[in-house]
């Protein structure tokens, strides 16, 4: 009930392409769905987040798509850049505890 499943584990995209990372959850009580970005040797940092009352949120090149009935949400990175190469974690929470997915290592080739 507390798990968040993330795929793919790794992703290689060419510069300018679209990166798509998917997550699925079981607990329908989750009410907050953030994505975190982590560079090597650094702590994760919040990238973008969504609440289940909307189906999509866009901030610059980053978009979250949310499908409440399917209990799935995804991160789309448009016009991917080499500087986007990092590990991305989806997460879900209700209350104080964030449950994270296993992470996706994204590599954007120049």
């Amino acid at each position: 009930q507390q798990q968040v499943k993330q795929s793919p584990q790794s992703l290689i995209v060419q510069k300018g392409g679209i990166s798509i990372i998917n997550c699925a959850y079981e607990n329908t009580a989750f009410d907050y769905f953030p994505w975190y970005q982590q560079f090597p040797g650094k702590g994760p940092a919040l990238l973008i987040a969504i609440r289940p009352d909307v189906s999509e949120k866009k901030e610059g090149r980053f978009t979250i798509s949310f499908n409440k009935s399917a209990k799935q949400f995804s991160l789309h990175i448009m016009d991917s850049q080499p500087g986007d190469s990092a590990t991305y974690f989806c997460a879900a929470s209700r209350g104080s505890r964030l449950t994270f997915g296993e992470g996706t290592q994204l590599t954007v080739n120049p």
Partner: protein
Amino acid sequence: GAGVSQSPSNKVTEKGKDVELRCDPISGHTALYWYRQSLGQGLEFLIYFQGNSAPDKSGLPSDRFSAERTGGSVSTLTIQRTQQEDSAVYLCASSLFGGSNTGELFFGEGSRLTVL
């Protein structure tokens, strides 16, 4: 600095020794969290503090793990009688509020623990 500060950044210890990891949250943040990140894995929740109390410590993997927070600020995670499986990066995070309004977590850079 204004961010979450953790020390030490790296710790190598021998199996069976005790270790203490320290976290300085962002000033004014009432909520503090400890997570563990093993190589190539996701973030595993350990414990959550609201002020000095820990309403959720269900993620601590065994009674060898304990944590405290004093003055609503600094937190220490203690691992007693360390085992090789304790090797990981221990991440601390803070947020302005906890409970149902947790919002954004701000993470430190972590303490990398290696148990030989």
